[in-house]
């Protein structure tokens, strides 16, 4: 547990250290590794709150985000610290006055949970293949949409809110096997905000 806190803290401080770079207006020709946006998310199986930098490609149709998530014991019954890699495709982009909408988003995420209670490779006590999934690494499929606009009063080039329907691996497996039990339980909801630099 102590080690996972250390790693989580280290990642958080790295993200904070990167902040001055990201806060500056994005310059044309900035190196690829400089993030062009940041996201803050509520829920979605990766923590109560998750935050981190993101990179957009192909005229903002493709986005990649790295989020550090946290859920406190007081709310989630145990402390959870996660590191999530999220990839998203926004095929449509509609603008109306200063508003811009991305009505349909499809994506995938891999979320790693820190801690000794979870495994990435099967512990020695099991024969190979004993469990076919990894409790530390959670794949998920995402469906969503977003709406945003510039907020000059806050000095933001673009602020958007988004929602995501999150289908984690265990929900997908149980839904395919047991549609009448799972029903809409295939998805949970995540809400979030993105700021473009």
């Amino acid at each position, binding site marked *: 547990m102590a080690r996972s806190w250390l790693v989580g803290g280290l990642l958080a401080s790295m993200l904070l250290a990167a902040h001055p770079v990201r806060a500056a207006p994005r310059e044309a020709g900035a190196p690829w590794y400089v993030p062009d946006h940041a996201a803050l998310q509520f829920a979605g199986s990766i923590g109560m709150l998750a935050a981190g930098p993101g990179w957009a490609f192909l005229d903002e149709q493709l986005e990649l985000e790295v989020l550090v998530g946290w859920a406190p014991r007081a709310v*989630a019954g145990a402390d959870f610290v996660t590191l999530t890699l999220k990839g998203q495709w926004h095929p449509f982009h509609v603008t109306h006055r200063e508003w811009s909408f991305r009505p349909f988003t499809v994506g995938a995420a891999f979320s790693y949970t820190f801690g000794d209670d979870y495994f990435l490779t099967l512990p020695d006590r099991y024969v190979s293949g004993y469990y076919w999934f990894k*409790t530390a690494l959670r794949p998920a499929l995402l469906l969503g949409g977003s709406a945003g606009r510039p907020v000059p009063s806050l000095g933001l080039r673009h602020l958007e809110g988004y929602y995501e329907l999150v289908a*984690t691996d*265990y929900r997908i497996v149980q839904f395919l096997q*047991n*549609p009448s039990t799972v029903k809409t*339980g295939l998805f949970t909801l995540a809400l979030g905000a993105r700021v473009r630099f």
Partner: protein
Amino acid sequence: MRSWVPCLLLLLCVSCDVFELHPYEIRGGVRDTNARALERLQRNVSGGSFRFAVLGDIGVYQDDSVDAVKDLARRDVDFVVQMGDLTEFSSAQEYDWVAGLLEDASVPALAVIGNHDLLGKGRELYLHRFGPTFLAFEHGGSRFVLFDSNSREYGFPGNVPDLEQLRSALGEAPGGGHLFTFSHVPPGHPDFDGSLTEPLEQLQAEHGVTVSFHGHTHRFSTDARRGVRYFIADSIELHSYLLVTVEGESVAVEQVFF
């Protein structure tokens, strides 16, 4: 005024479990399913004759377990014990689905813990949703003991299953009644602590256990060891469960299909 609307919606959403903070979150939902099943059972006083049912592993076959629980309603059983592997991944949501199903069953329903229920924060989730993993109770003059036999999940520490706890629970049995034990992994299976197989079988024989019930292998089987009958229930997707009829001295275990 309109700014209240999203807040209200958000509150509504939280209460209907639309948000998940983590796959292994331990919050809300059904609590202490086993204890509440026992409360229901105690209102139903039985003489020396009664029936109970034993359901096998559920795992990824929740729709089949719904059918099983429906079928139980027409069998005149006093209660049912599910033999563990309530879930496949130990996730909070799977625990919720299964605890809800057992809670809504027409008869009191209890569950033992299986190896698939112990992954991640699974043990904490079981304690939250179902209660202690060791449970002893009496019904119709017989004694029933549920315990954790998933030795491999703990790395074979030598005290899973806890034979001392089992010994004292079996020792308190009322005179004249039968003794029934329930645990997920059967003794003799590679996932059961090999150093405890003989001691467990010996202990159950000494105390005159009538039947020892198990799951885990997914296939029905039965044998007798040192005078004690051992039964393994089919996993639920095979659409069968065990029906046990106790009439005084006689105990009949029947495999029924639905």
